Each structure stands twice: as structure tokens, then as C-alpha cells.
């Protein structure tokens, strides 16, 4: 069953054709990785899915409903959630308050406190809970934002470069976290440059190049594809 379907999505920024007739189908329950060179249009595709940008043409269908015209917050209510490329935590507020803001529309009172505690433990940020989020390390900010995104219990989690700036160990832990969430039924679409992470988690991989779907398949198929090596993996492995 498909959870998300992008149908012939087109987006221009002035003369730049950032996404060119993109067709992409996500199956419910899969971990799907989106890779491609810088400027390929990956983050823009996320913003189209989230309704921050509106496509010039094409449709976005989520769980059988055409959401192309919905406002962003309404899409979140349908079961989407995102961690942005640049960490988007509430910098001036404490870690705890960040999580409270994410959780408060679903939980109240003592239950809310318990949920915050559980999430702090899950993220390994218990001793940082009183800190101002802006003072966290880059990796901790990433985790905090992932935690906020996850706390919405989305059906589809969008992760834009979740491991950027993380050490190999941290990257691996993030991979395990994603797999744990997926085992609980969450579908995941992740943009990543770190091929170790992609190999660890991806069920399927899509390569985006110059705004177009360039290749799609299992990680082994993608790595074996000489055309992909020429435009992307070649340079990444050079």
C-alpha cells in the first residue's frame, strides 16, 4: 500500500527548474532514502511535501487524500512530521520547554510530564533538560529536533540530513533509532549524504539529480549503477 504519492511535481524558482516532473511513491512501513548531489532539489521536495512551497503543477497524495492545497499545519495533523536540514529547535528556550511545546497538544498535566521524561531519556538529553537549546552541541540539537518530530507520532517522518555533523558512532545510533521507530510502524523518508547510514537503514533508495528522479532501487543496485557513480557517488567516494 502506498502512503505518499508524488505525481509529476514541478517547481520553478525563477528560471531554475528545481523539481522536474517528480514521481515518487512511498510504501507504508518502508525506510526510504533520498540521495543526490548538492542542489539536486531534495530539500525543496520536502518543502513541497510539507506545503511550505507550492508546486507549479502536480499532485501530492497522502494516505489516499490529495493534500496539495492543504496548509502546512493541516498536513502535520494528517500525520506528517519533519526534521529540517538546518536544526530548527527553539534556540532561546530550554530543552524541556522545546519538548513540552511539541507534546502539549497531545498530553496534559501529569501525563505530559511523564511523556517529556520518557522522550528526554529516549534522546539521552536528561541532564541537559534545563539548558537553553541554543547552547547544545550540533548533534544534540539534531537529536532534540528529531525527538520533537517523532513526538508527534507521525505516520510519515521526513528527515533532512539527520546525521550531518555527527561522529560515526552517533550516526550509527541515529540509524538504530530510525530502525526502532520504523519497527513500531513509522514510515521514514530520509535525505542523507552519509552512505554508511543509507546502507544501514534504507529499504529503498531514490537518486535525485537536477530535479529529476535519476535512479531507484535497493542500496546495492544503486551503488552498482555506473550512471549514479558518475554523477554522485563517484565524487562522494573520491
Amino acid at each position, binding site marked *: 500500500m502506498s502512503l505518499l504519492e508524488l505525481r509529476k511535481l514541478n517547481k520553478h524558482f525563477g528560471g531554475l527548474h528545481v523539481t522536474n516532473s517528480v514521481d515518487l511513491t512511498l510504501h507504508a512501513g518502508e525506510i526510504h532514502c533520498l540521495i543526490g548531489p548538492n542542489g539536486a532539489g531534495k530539500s525543496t521536495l520536502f518543502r513541497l511535501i510539507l506545503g511550505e512551497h507550492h508546486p507549479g503543477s502536480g499532485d501530492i497524495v497522502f494516505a489516499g487524500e490529495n493534500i496539495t492545497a492543504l496548509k502546512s*499545519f493541516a498536513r502535520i*495533523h494528517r500525520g506528517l512530521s519533519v526534521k*529540517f536540514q538546518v536544526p530548527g529547535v527553539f*534556540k532561546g528556550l*530550554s530543552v524541556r*520547554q522545546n519538548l513540552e511545546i511539541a507534546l502539549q497538544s497531545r498530553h496534559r*498535566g501529569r501525563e505530559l510530564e511523564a511523556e517529556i521524561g520518557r522522550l528526554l531519556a529516549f534522546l539521552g538529553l536528561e541532564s541537559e533538560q534545563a539548558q537553553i537549546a541554543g547552547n547544545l552541541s550540533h548533534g544534540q540539537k539534531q537529536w532534540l529536533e528529531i525527538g*520533537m*518530530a517523532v513526538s*508527534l507520532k507521525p505516520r510519515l517522518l521526513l528527515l533532512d540530513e539527520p546525521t550531518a555533523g555527527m561522529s560515526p558512532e552517533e550516526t550509527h545510533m541515529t540509524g538504530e533509532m530510525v530502525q526502532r521507530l520504523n519497527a513500531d510502524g513509522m514510515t521514514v523518508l530520509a535525505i542523507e549524504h552519509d552512505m554508511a547510514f543509507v546502507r544501514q537503514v534504507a529499504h529503498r533508495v531514490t537518486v535525485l539529480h537536477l530535479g529529476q528522479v535519476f535512479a531507484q532501487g535497493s542500496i546495492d543496485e544503486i551503488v552498482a549503477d555506473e550512471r549514479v557513480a558518475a554523477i554522485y557517488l563517484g565524487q562522494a567516494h573520491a
Partner: protein
Amino acid sequence: MTGLLAMFRRLEGPQTAGRGPAFWGLFALVLAAALAYPQFSDGYTVGNTVYFFVWVFIALSLCLIWGYGGSLSFGQTAFFGIAGYGYGILTINFGSAYGFTLVALVAAVAIAALFAVLLGYFMFFGRIAGVFLGIVTLAVTLMLERFMAQTAGPEWHIGTARLNGFNGMSAMPPLTIPWPGEPIVLFADVGLYYLVLGLLVFVYLALRILMNSSFGNVIVAIRENPERAEMLGYDIRKYQLITFVIGAALAGLSGVLYTVWGQYITPSSMGMTAAALPLIWVAVGGRSDLTSTVIGTLVVLAAFQALTIYGSQYALVFMGVLLVLTVLIAPNGLVLGVMNWLGRIATRLTQRAG
């Protein structure tokens, strides 16, 4: 009952400075002094204090919209003026019998709020933000001032109320409470003092509760990162609009109280200087904290008035210097800086004791 308790617990929280028995003890002390003060003073001085209090509401409105919400609005004086004129027009036409002045107070505030609904809807749903929000609100304020300034002719009247152009509208009745026997007229001394003080305490505590509630959380979240707030599922435009309307109502309350205090209102109350002064009070006090805003506003107003005795040009220069100092020394506000410093000392002392 538990709901009420939960509400009172929201008097303290991460969004408001001041907590614990020491803070509330001090609060009670200040309140007691404020209640007793008219007994030890004269009518003129008390009336002057009311004048200071009147401005605190517009300062709090700016604290809410700008300090907590992150949207710099120059439009607060527009709501101030609309409500002030609204009260004048209503009471000059319908008089003060049967407690109508109180109805007019509420109606005038409601008119200002309604205007904010229209303006705010256009701005927030039209995605006007940041600097542009400041420009649009300032333009609206100055337009209103220009418009009212040219209403000197006798053709400009609403019912029996002449708008009177630059001279302003005057001789509206003061607030009057119907009372068996003789109605109580709240002239600008002790009577009005207790009403305004009561309103001030109520608004201050209510805003504390509001800002520490889940609504307040969303408001500061929008200030910190509107995109992230929306991506947590919040309809941020709706929250911004509600905040803007609450702020407009508070500014309107200031306008009505100002009008009943002096029994006049002029277009210059919506002018450039009038729009800039509240920004200075709030910035100097500490825009992101209610208590700092209240203290900052009262202190700056008192200092301003003291200096005006030597000439208003000095007072204005003083305000400018104060603003520059604030930006240089304590960008989050001088009063807030001092309060945070005191808070740190208090924690250190309790830690040492414990």
C-alpha cells in the same frame, strides 16, 4: 477546583521572571503599599499616579505582541486612539446614566479589538511579518492621526460628538458607577485610582497565567522559530492574530482610561512620538517579561516627568540616552537584567542555606 488550582500554578513558569515565596511576598508588600498609599497622599499626586498606571496597559500590550510574540507593532497607539475616541463618542451621545460609561468602556475596547481583527487578519494571513509588520502598523497609526487631525470642521461629528480636529475631543463624562441614592463618579483621583489599580493587578496576573499556559508556549515558539512551530501542527497565523487582538484590547483599555482620566483625547495621542514612547519603556524594562515591563514603564515615566520640570527637551534626550544604554548594556532590558541578577543571588543564597 483542580482546574482553578492548575490555573494558579501557571502564575509561575519559564515565561515570567519571579517565583517562590520571596517574590510573592514582595508582590503582596508592594500591593499593600499601593492600596494604602492614597491615605497618605493628596488628590493631585494620586491622580498623577493614575496617569502613570494608565500607560502600563499599552506597555503590557507591546510586551505581549513584541516581547513574547516577536512581532514589532507600531500600531498600539492606533488602538489606544480608537478606543479613546470610541469612549468619547459613545458617552457624549448617550451620557453617563444607568452605568452607561462602564458599558462604553467595554464597547470602546471591543471596537479597538474588532479593528485589530480586521487589520491582523489582513497582515498575518497575508503573511506580512518582520519589518513589514512594523511598517504597516506605523502607516495605519499615522493615517489615523492625519485623518483625525483634519476633522476640525463642524461637519465632522458623530451624533452630538464633534471630532474637533487637532484640538481633540473633550468633556466626555468620567466613569460613573450607578449606586442607590447617588451614583459614584470616578474623578481622576482616589476613586479612579482604585479602579485602575484593580484592573492593573488583574491584567498582570491574568497575563502571567496566559503566558505560562500552553498558549503562551506557542506564542514564544513562534517568536523563536515560526516554521518549526507550524511544523509541530500549530496554525501560527491564528495564534498571532489572537495575540494581536488581546494586545489591541489592552492598548484600547489604556486609551479609554487615558480619556476618562483627563476627559480629553487628541490626534497626537496617535502620533509618531506617542507611538515611539511605549517602545522605549518596554525595551528599557525588558520586553520579554511582564514584571520588567511594568516596573520599567513606571520608572521611566516617573523619571521622564521629573526631568520635564527642567524642560521637555532634556527629558526626550534622556529617553534617547536610556534607549542607547539599554541596547549597549542590557539588550534584553535593564530591569530584566537586574531581576535576573537578583534571582541568581537568591538561588545562590538558598543553595548555601540548604
